């Protein structure tokens, strides 16, 4: 479904929505430098200072490569997976460092701007997946205030920007699949998208099966064409990745690894598990099991997660199938690499469901309000219903937002529980 074009009267509305979104992202980020960034609150021994401002020790991986982008010396350090998987973000941060003279604020700007763009993409993704404007706006509100994005701000390992590429990638994928009529261009576009996702984080692995679902619903192409487009895109991605790696190797950035493999390759993790299995029974723990599902529920917050699932039941078939596939890959990824952000990989779709559920509650409240005689209110039942729908929907979404942002008011229980899924959690 192509996103409907906005009439001129809605241009102001779009601007206002985007400006509000940017304001919200900035407020959420800046408030946390006052009340306590999540990482620094959870793990003070991992906190360092850069230019007098708080960062995590992992920022070292990226800061050491500023001279690679901005210095004239010969290559001193290799670019391993931890760097190439965030190559675009690192390039942007280095470029801004040259402009501003401040590495701290440049990294922060990249995180904030891509976080905001992720929110914009989430809104348009939700609209394309068939939700109403109200539900999409509420889902976007939940998306930008979600723990996966807030939790990594001020770490300066570019994770806030990394995780925002999920809505960006999903939106770009659906936009390409729905709008591009030419098979060759579509294959090229999807291949490029998968490659760009692999150099801005690692969500290409989730998008590969999701693209198959999205293409399956495009009846303008024959089934064999759809399969060809999908396979062609995957092959293009693999070829582009090999060329990229080859160029880095030739230019001196491949052989000297600092810190080696500080991040795990998904394919290697899966292969290691499979090789370690001595029989079929050893493969049982690889299946999505209860503890992973519980972890997923906890890192979203149980009420937010249940609302998201309930709302997803109201979505159309295509959206449900996309969410199902993305969630299945997420569960498998969490089994291989247990981290809160891995468990939340399908977050735009869960928040889409939550937005729809909030709107449904608003509509239900409006229905009830029409049945109840309300004295002293001289408005038409229709207008009253619309007001009640918006108010109740926004209230529900705001309540869900508050549940995962209570750290701003000094209640750090959710923050600590969220981070405890990353290596237990230090006691101090």
């Amino acid at each position, binding site marked *: 479904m192509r996103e409907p074009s*906005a009439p001129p009267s809605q*241009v102001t509305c779009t601007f206002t929505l985007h400006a509000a979104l940017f304001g919200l992202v900035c407020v959420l980020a800046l408030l946390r430098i006052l009340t306590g960034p999540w990482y620094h609150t959870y793990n*003070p021994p991992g906190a360092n*200072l850069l230019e007098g401002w*708080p960062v995590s020790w992992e920022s070292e991986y990226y800061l050491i490569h500023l001279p690679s982008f901005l210095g004239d010396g010969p290559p001193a350090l290799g670019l391993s997976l931890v760097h190439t998987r965030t190559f675009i973000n690192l390039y942007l941060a280095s470029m801004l460092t040259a402009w501003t003279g401040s590495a701290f604020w440049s990294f922060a700007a990249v995180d904030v701007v891509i976080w905001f763009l992720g929110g914009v993409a989430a809104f348009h993704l939700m609209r394309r997946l068939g939700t109403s404007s109200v539900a999409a706006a509420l889902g976007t509100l939940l998306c930008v205030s979600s723990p996966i994005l807030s939790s990594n701000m001020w770490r300066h390992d570019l994770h806030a920007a990394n995780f925002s590429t999920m809505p960006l990638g999903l939106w770009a994928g659906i936009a390409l699949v729905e709008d591009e009529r030419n098979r060759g261009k579509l294959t090229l576009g999807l291949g490029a998208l998968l490659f760009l996702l692999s150099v801005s984080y690692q969500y290409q692995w989730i998008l590969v099966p999701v693209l198959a679902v999205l293409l399956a619903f495009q009846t303008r192409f024959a089934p064999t064409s759809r399969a060809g487009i999908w396979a062609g895109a995957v092959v293009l991605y693999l070829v582009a990745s090999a060329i990229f790696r080859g160029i880095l190797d030739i230019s001196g950035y491949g052989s000297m690894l600092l810190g080696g493999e500080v991040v795990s390759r998904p394919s290697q993790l899966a292969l290691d598990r499979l090789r370690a299995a001595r029989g079929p029974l050893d493969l049982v723990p690889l299946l999505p099991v209860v503890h992973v599902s519980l972890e997923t529920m906890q890192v979203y917050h149980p009420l937010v997660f249940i609302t998201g699932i309930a709302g997803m039941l109201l979505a159309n078939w295509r959206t449900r199938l996309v969410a199902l596939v993305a969630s299945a890959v997420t569960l498998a990824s969490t089994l291989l690499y247990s981290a809160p952000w891995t468990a939340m990989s399908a977050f735009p779709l869960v928040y889409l469901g939550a937005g729809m559920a909030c709107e449904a509650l608003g509509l239900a409240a409006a229905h009830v309000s029409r049945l109840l005689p309300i004295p002293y209110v001289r408005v038409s039942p229709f207008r009253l219903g619309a007001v009640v729908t918006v108010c109740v929907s926004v209230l529900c979404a705001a309540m869900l937002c508050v549940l995962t942002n209570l750290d701003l008011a000094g209640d750090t229980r959710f923050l600590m529980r969220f981070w405890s899924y990353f290596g237990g959690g*230090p*006691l101090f």
Partner: protein
Amino acid sequence: MIGAFSLPGRAEVRSAVAGALPHGIVGLVVAQLHLALPSSAEPHLALAAGVKWAVLSWIVSEALAVAIMLARPVLGPKRPGEADAGRGTLLRIVGVGAIIIAAALLRSPGRLVLNLLGFAMVTVTVCWTVQRRAGWGASARAASIVVVLAFFPTHLDYPTPPLKVRVLPDNPFNWSTGWPSGEWVLRHRVELDAPWPEKGASITFIGDREYIGPAAILARVNERDLGPMRREVSGHAIIELPADVARGQRMFVIELRTSISDPALRLTAQRWTGGATAGSGASSYFDGERWHTGTFNDALGSPKPGVYVMLLGPL
């Protein structure tokens, strides 16, 4: 050939000058302000700042123009071929951009490759996104912004990465704390949800830097003296609690003294207390007269709310 590269008309030149004028004024104002500052009266620095701010001003105005074009309703082409108008301009801008970036970085081939790769990835992403919503013209303007942003750093040489530190004396987030006199005691309380299991525990306090002086930190845990803490090269101080001391405990009260007063012996403290098991009152200090909640930044000579940075873990 002449037709392909025809000179701009008077109206176009006038329009270009009028467009550039405000940015030039911004640059001049910034340069004048720089000259007026007593700290940076160097004319070449003022000129550099003026040029940079003039370009920044242009980038901001172009970015706003592109944003407005993105927010406009999508309209179909009015005439055949109009949909492709601007495609050539975009390709020329991107091509020329890549050439000037490459030419500027020929002195450093490795850097040249990384910058061209980054430039290509950002340009493709930005141009595709803008083009599909606002057309080739807007896409060309967005590409010109990327070219200018990417070209500017090429004249700089940034040889070393920025330095990170654990603490700074007057920092509001992470500072260090020590023992200003012999009777000074630092105390930290850890409260557990469940009794400590049947094994020993390890307590680590994070030092602010390497320490190789004569002083030792003496630890007392739950009213039991455990002697001097082990010092690591990193400056961390560690004490191991035997299983019989740790087992079943729901609270650890750790008190730290020094064998001799040494201003160089210091521990790290942090502002945010939300993760501490005992909350904002977890850390305290004794100044020889009475106990105070929080920490004491003796570099500034003032108390600071916060916690000592430490860890309790199993042996």
